[in-house]
């Protein structure tokens, strides 16, 4: 698998144990915690999916996007606008539709923004994100700035048989967990594939990748669209969870928050952003109950974490556990060359 710069290798056995343990915990949790927390955990997992999606572009592609909330929110609006007034929309029609709409919009935004680099790419994506925000904020589409309600949650019914009831908090929790699991599996496969390697190569050295014949623009556009479509899944489920969408769902503020989750968790690993999302939301939840000025405390904690753990929260694992693998080679040419000056 492509290693990201600064990646720390926690022993794979520790990883496996942690993975199995968290899977077991996540399967049991909804039956032991109050329903409020079942809902909270579902929300955190959807944010985790959004952070994982963003990291494909930010961590692996080296492109900082500030419009991912727009893809997230747009998918929510697709659900809201296609839900009939008298009953639930079919998830099997509206979810693919939301993904297609977002893919098309992301292809246009990506094709235009990816002509720029660095800070200009950030500005371009911010501008496109805000255009979508104002499209829903300043027009009558979807209730304008007031947002729009989805009165009936989407239904997962095949041939008269209801697979899951999205209105049921526990069912919804498992749908979110399943989506999260599939996202992780998909991204793991993707970043380890030739496509993932080429994407990382283009981030390491764009000119070099071009000189090897890789269509860097096309690779980045594909990664951008894939990432947007995953964000759309999270946005669609989020809209279904709360039965309400508003322009704030598309705003840059959410884009920036997700970016903080990615950086906090660590962009140098696949699961880092998920850890970041859950940690940030958990932190907010705890601080809200303890302090009136909780945002101030949150800010200070985030600053402290960035200073203490520049590799992100996933670095914590590496600190406790012995590292795997490559001891620096002290024999051979490395030494020889130093000797030659």
């Amino acid at each position, binding site marked *: 698998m*492509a290693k990201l710069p600064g990646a720390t290798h926690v022993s794979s056995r520790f990883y496996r144990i942690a993975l199995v343990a968290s899977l077991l915990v996540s399967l049991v949790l909804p039956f032991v915690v109050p329903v409020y927390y079942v809902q909270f955990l579902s929300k955190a997992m959807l944010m985790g999916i959004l952070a994982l999606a963003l990291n494909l572009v930010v961590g692996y592609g080296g492109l900082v996007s500030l419009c991912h909330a727009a893809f997230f929110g747009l998918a929510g609006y697709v659900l809201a606008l296609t839900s009939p007034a008298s009953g639930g929309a079919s998830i099997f029609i509206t979810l693919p539709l939301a993904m297609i709409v977002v893919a098309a919009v992301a292809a246009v935004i990506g094709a235009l923004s990816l002509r720029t680099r660095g800070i200009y790419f950030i500005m371009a994506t911010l501008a496109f994100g805000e255009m979508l925000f104002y499209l829903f904020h300043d027009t009558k589409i979807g209730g304008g700035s007031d947002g729009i309600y989805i009165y009936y949650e989407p239904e997962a019914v095949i041939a008269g048989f209801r697979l899951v009831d999205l209105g049921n908090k526990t069912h919804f929790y498992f749908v979110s967990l399943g989506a999260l699991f599939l996202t992780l599996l998909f991204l793991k496969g993707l970043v380890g594939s030739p496509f993932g*390697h080429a994407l990382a190569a283009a981030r*390491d050295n764009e000119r070099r990748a071009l*000189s090897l*014949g890789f269509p*860097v623009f096309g690779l980045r556009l594909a990664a951008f669209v894939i990432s947007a479509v995953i964000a759309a899944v999270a946005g669609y489920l989020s809209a279904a969870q709360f039965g309400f969408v508003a322009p704030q769902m598309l705003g840059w503020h959410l884009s920036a928050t997700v970016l903080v989750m990615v950086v906090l968790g660590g962009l140098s690993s696949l699961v880092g952003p998920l850890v970041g999302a859950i940690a940030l939301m958990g932190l907010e939840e705890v601080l809200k109950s303890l302090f009136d000025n909780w945002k101030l405390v949150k800010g200070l904690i985030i600053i402290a974490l960035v200073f203490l753990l520049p590799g992100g929260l996933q670095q914590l694992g590496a600190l406790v556990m012995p590292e795997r693998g490559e001891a620096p*080679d002290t024999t051979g040419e490395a030494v*020889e060359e130093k000797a*030659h000056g």
Partner: protein
Amino acid sequence: MTPLLVIENLRSFYGVSQALHGVGLSVGRGEQIALIGRNGMGKTTLLRSIMGLIHDRRGEIRFDGASTIDRQPEDIARAGIAYVPEGRGVFGSLDVVENLVMAARPGRDGHSNWTLERVFEVFPRLHQRRGHGGLQLSGGEQQMLSIGRALMTNPDLILLDEATEGLAPLIAQEIWAMLDIIRAEGIATIVVDKDHRSLARVADRMVVMAKGEIAFDGTPAALRAEPGILERHLGI
């Protein structure tokens, strides 16, 4: 037989400043060209123009008969030109094998003379270090990896910038030996280096650049016969 690469009246610009002032050069199939000259005379600009990495380039470049002057770098790479830039540009987040395998592609006529095994055969050191990340390699190993990666694309022409700069003498010898292997394979090369004596030993032709133009183009023997040229253009 038509030459592999033909460059006519090539003018390249960085913004408003002109770096190449009408360069003409032709490279035959399997021919090894040494490109020398002081810093800032346009050697790297010429290589980058051939590769399509200089946006504003005018004149004509034909590779295997087809014009590449308006084509994108990735198309030019796929047409059969491989570029090993100064500073190597190894992908630091990929290991040695990944760096090589990602570039693997058959040549234009479908031949795959260069495989992972073959690269490891000529650079055994890379084989020893195969699991290491690109940035854990020494400068010489990075240069071998960069050349190996260029070969994995089974090119017809390799552009090699500052082939041995900053390398220990023993490692530099390995690179020069590699150039002999490349020539024996029938792959054409344009090599830039400061070590004009070693270049004269391996190259078919010596090309001297000065102020964005070709100042001399001839065999190593012809260059030796005119010591004034090296003195004027290399300050030797």
